[in-house]
């Protein structure tokens, strides 16, 4: 239950799904080259369609968070690392993309595979 003194913070920032107590060894580190898995789940996912199957570089490890794909369906928290991954615009959209642009996307460990 939300207590009156918690309301202001809840409205300002929302509730975090970070799990700092979950000590899970990260599978990737900054600089690692990864590929976003090509998955098209029937249920919920936070993996944008345009990034699927694309190659990127781990930029930063945000720590451990609840996994939305299972949490949306009563299948548990499945806490795991979330990384900021850098994708080159050229890799995402091909030739029409402006040259030096890049997109940083926050991606859960399960969305990634080594490349």
């Amino acid at each position, binding site marked *: 239950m939300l207590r009156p003194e918690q309301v202001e913070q809840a409205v300002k920032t929302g*509730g975090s799904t970070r799990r700092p107590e979950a000590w899970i060894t990260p599978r990737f580190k900054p600089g690692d080259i990864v590929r976003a898995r090509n998955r098209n789940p029937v249920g919920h996912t936070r993996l944008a*369609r345009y990034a699927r199957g694309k190659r990127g570089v781990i930029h930063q490890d945000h720590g451990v968070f609840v996994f939305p794909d299972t949490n*949306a369906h009563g299948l548990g928290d499945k806490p795991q690392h979330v990384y900021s991954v850098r994708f080159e615009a050229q890799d995402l959209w091909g030739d029409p993309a402006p040259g030096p642009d890049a997109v940083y996307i926050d991606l859960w460990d399960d969305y990634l595979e080594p490349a």
Partner: protein
Amino acid sequence: MNGIHDLGGMHGFGPIVCEKDEPVFHAEWERRTFGLLTATLALRRYNIDEFRHAIERMDPTGYLESSYYEHWLHAIETLLIEKGVITKQELTTRTAELAKGAS
């Protein structure tokens, strides 16, 4: 989910027009809807990911024709009914009462 609500968006909807001095809410019901989500999440009958999935499950045509906070309201109604907090009949009855000007 490969629904209309892919968080990456899609091309073809024209430029994003930024409103000058845009207010946080454009109508009182939007403010109420914002509070309703915070309050119902605090009940822990559903979580933020179920909420987002409820938006993804919207009828694609309805999704495109409705506004940001209408998506929120739709998802809140869907989940409160699915989780048994209210019934569809209660929602329909109350909506009809409010439409007639009851408070």
